[in-house]
């Protein structure tokens, strides 16, 4: 069977998505030219929620604006030609037996999702990424499926070593090829991994009821694109089922629930044209009145607005005890501004070199779910790495040159003298000083005469922090040899003004 052009295009973009996903990782170069953020850059849902929340323009959004224009001209083609989640659904749906569509999802349900989401953005709560289809797919991959792939592959490789020892080296080149080009570098377990995958699986499970159930009845991006697509001069003709045939209803994955084509649900896959036994169908430009009013009814508009406002206010609650460890990626200076811009797509966490970034579950409040947090005990921010800023689609984490990024303050380290060995046990350690990447050392030590635990006087190197030049990268906390709780920890600070350029003016690396 010959593949439809739309299907070829879908497969191409799915492959591209996966390729870019795998490329969103350090592979020996400081710059990542093409990352999976390309998909978010063209995402109009990201565009609108950003504009509503941040209330200013960013050139990073230009591709999404072009997508809006394209959708206004052509219709909702993104869903049928590009969206990788839609493609995934199209690929699996034939394996899933259908029962009847869910009545409750019909009607205005999708607007009841989209409108409060957009209105909440207006009230500074940008949660659109939670329901963005690309973000849902990406998070499920990043947090669960990709780590599982890595762990399975590495697990097999390690057990091969325990079986045959160094003789494993003979097959190493083949494994290295896979490892260097496909596998994640490090095995990481993320919070919310199961939940992220469960959301995706639920969306797939919705195919039990009808094809493209999510896309048609829930997806806020699809709803937005559908609404924009209503203005398109492109029309499928004839606009309704022919009395003598009606095969379209069978062929169409989305918009032929009723006898008339619902334009905003047509994803332009053109399956009807390909499958029409009479060759009657064409997609042509021409003025045509869309079905229904251009704006949703007033009750819905007002209700959506109110819903967003009601959502926005209580979601701002942040548990105060978590604030002290609310560490954001480098370059994020203002929490509120960050939350407005962050898509929660998970790319920064995917790319993070040392796996320092993890999705917040509840630490940042309901508002901050899935936003990236630095957890230094698990991974630290590598001094010379700028990858998270490079892949962030909206600049929530600014993309900075390495000289600037090194000076960005994530937090400040604080010693815990009850745990830190030279204080608590009167023995030498200073692993933290050794690892501190600041050329002038933000952690230094001094020789101090102490009476040891055995009562004898001895000299111990006691570390101390030079707070003005600490950027909170967290390597000290990460490498602290004290088990479980570190003797030095990074705490959040309000004033994240970058540390000043050192007065000696020497270029440092």
């Amino acid at each position, binding site marked *: 069977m010959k593949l439809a052009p739309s299907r070829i295009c879908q497969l191409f973009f799915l492959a591209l998505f996966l390729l870019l996903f795998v490329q969103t990782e*350090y592979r*020996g170069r400081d710059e990542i030219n093409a990352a999976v953020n390309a998909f978010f850059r063209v995402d109009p849902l990201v565009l609108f929620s950003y504009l509503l929340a941040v209330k200013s323009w960013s050139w990073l959004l230009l591709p999404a604006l072009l997508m809006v224009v394209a959708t206004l001209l052509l219709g909702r083609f993104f869903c049928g030609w590009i969206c990788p989640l839609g493609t995934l659904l199209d690929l699996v749906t034939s394996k899933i037996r259908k029962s009847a569509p869910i009545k409750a999802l019909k009607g205005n349900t999708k607007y009841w999702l989209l409108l409060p989401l957009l209105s909440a953005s207006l009230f500074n709560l940008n949660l659109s990424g939670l329901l963005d289809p690309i973000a849902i797919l990406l998070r499920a991959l990043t947090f669960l499926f990709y780590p599982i792939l890595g762990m399975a592959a590495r697990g097999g490789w*390690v057990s091969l*070593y*325990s079986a045959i020892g*160094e003789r494993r080296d003979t097959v*190493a080149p083949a494994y290295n090829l896979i490892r260097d080009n496909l596998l994640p*570098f490090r095995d990481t377990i993320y919070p919310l991994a199961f939940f992220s995958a469960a959301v995706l699986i639920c969306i797939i499970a919705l195919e039990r009821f009808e094809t493209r159930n999510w896309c048609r009845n829930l997806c806020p991006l699809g709803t937005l694109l559908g609404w924009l697509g209503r203005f398109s001069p492109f029309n499928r003709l004839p606009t309704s089922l022919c009395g003598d045939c009606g095969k379209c209803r069978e062929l169409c994955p989305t918009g032929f629930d009723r006898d008339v084509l619902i334009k905003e649900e047509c994803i332009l896959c053109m399956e009807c044209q390909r499958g029409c036994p009479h060759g009657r169908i064409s997609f042509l430009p021409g003025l045509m009145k869309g079905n229904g009013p251009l704006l949703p009814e007033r009750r819905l508009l007002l209700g959506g607005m109110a819903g967003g406002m009601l959502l926005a206010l209580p979601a701002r609650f942040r548990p105060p005890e978590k604030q002290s460890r609310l560490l954001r990626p480098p370059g994020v200076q203002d929490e509120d501004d960050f939350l407005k811009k962050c898509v929660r797509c998970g790319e920064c966490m995917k790319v993070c*070199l*040392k796996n320092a970034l993890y999705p917040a579950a509840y630490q940042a409040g309901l508002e901050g779910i899935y936003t990236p947090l630095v957890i230094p005990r698990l991974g630290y921010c*590598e*001094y*010379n*790495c700028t990858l998270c800023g490079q892949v962030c689609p909206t600049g929530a984490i600014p993309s900075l040159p390495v000289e600037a990024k090194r000076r960005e303050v994530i937090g400040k380290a604080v010693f815990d003298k009850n745990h830190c*060995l030279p204080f608590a046990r009167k*023995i*030498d*350690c*200073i*692993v933290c*000083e*050794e*690892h*501190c*990447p*600041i*050329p*002038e*050392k933000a952690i230094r*030590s001094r020789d101090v005469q102490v009476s040891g635990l055995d009562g004898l006087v001895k000299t111990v*190197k006691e570390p101390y922090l030079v707070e003005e030049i600490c950027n909170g990268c967290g390597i000290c906390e990460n*490498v*602290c*040899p004290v*088990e479980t709780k570190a003797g030095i920890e990074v705490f959040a600070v309000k004033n994240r003004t970058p540390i000043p350029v050192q007065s*000696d003016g*020497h*270029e*440092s*690396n």
Partner: protein
Amino acid sequence: MDRRTFIKATGSAVLLAPVLIRETLAAREPSLVAVAEGTDYAATTRKAINAVGGMKRFVKSGDVVVVKPNMGWDRASEFAANTHPLVVRAVVEECLAAGAKKVKVFDYTCNDSRRCYVNSGIEGALKGMKNVECKQIEPERFKKTTLNGQFLKEWELYDEALSANVYINVPIAKHHGLSKLTLGLKNVMGIMGGNRGYVHRSLDIALADINAHVKTHLTIIDATRILTAHGPQGGNIADVKVLNKVIASTDTVAADAFATTLFGMKPSDIPVTVAAYKRGLGEMNLDKIRIVRA
């Protein structure tokens, strides 16, 4: 000679022979430290190696050789945090020329290993060389090894370092906050797994324990440029001093002892050196070390 004299002479000779043989063995050559100088780092490295007898003295045809540089930090080579790539490459080339079947170069890095391998310049310098491996550490290869040392009873050590025929230690000479300097004896930490920070609480003894267990055939200290402060990671070019020197010795303690003088310090200032000397791992008294300028 009458019979009596003959018997006396043979008798005493027989009695004394073992003692004499032991004496001559004990009074072996003093530790030899070769110091080569020059701005062509590859040539300088070769000069130093040749001055201690050439690589053929250590590497036999068909040997698997481990060359262990210090590439623990994500710093470019001019910042003197990692062994110079040209020095490493010269050592590797000499090993291959001496007939090595395979040369393995690795380090258990402190920063992200991918970045360290790339930005130290060492991975790049070895790229495309045949029979040379510059692989990242694979954690499963650390083997719990019985040391029965004074501080460390056992520790996880890297199997490739343990199973190699020849182990060549190629540190860079640099400042270190805790041990004052990090040289050959401390570079062995790059084959240690586990919670390495733990050994900091008794670093000198721990390093003597490991060095007593791991046989180092040749130590080549890169002092082409040294890091004089803010070690072991540095990052400020003002802390780097260019010396254009490469030091080679079969005695790591002696090599370290000499390298200490480059920083204006005495070997006895460095507890790691002193502990290794006391353990009998080598000579640290500079007047008992034969220093050859190559």
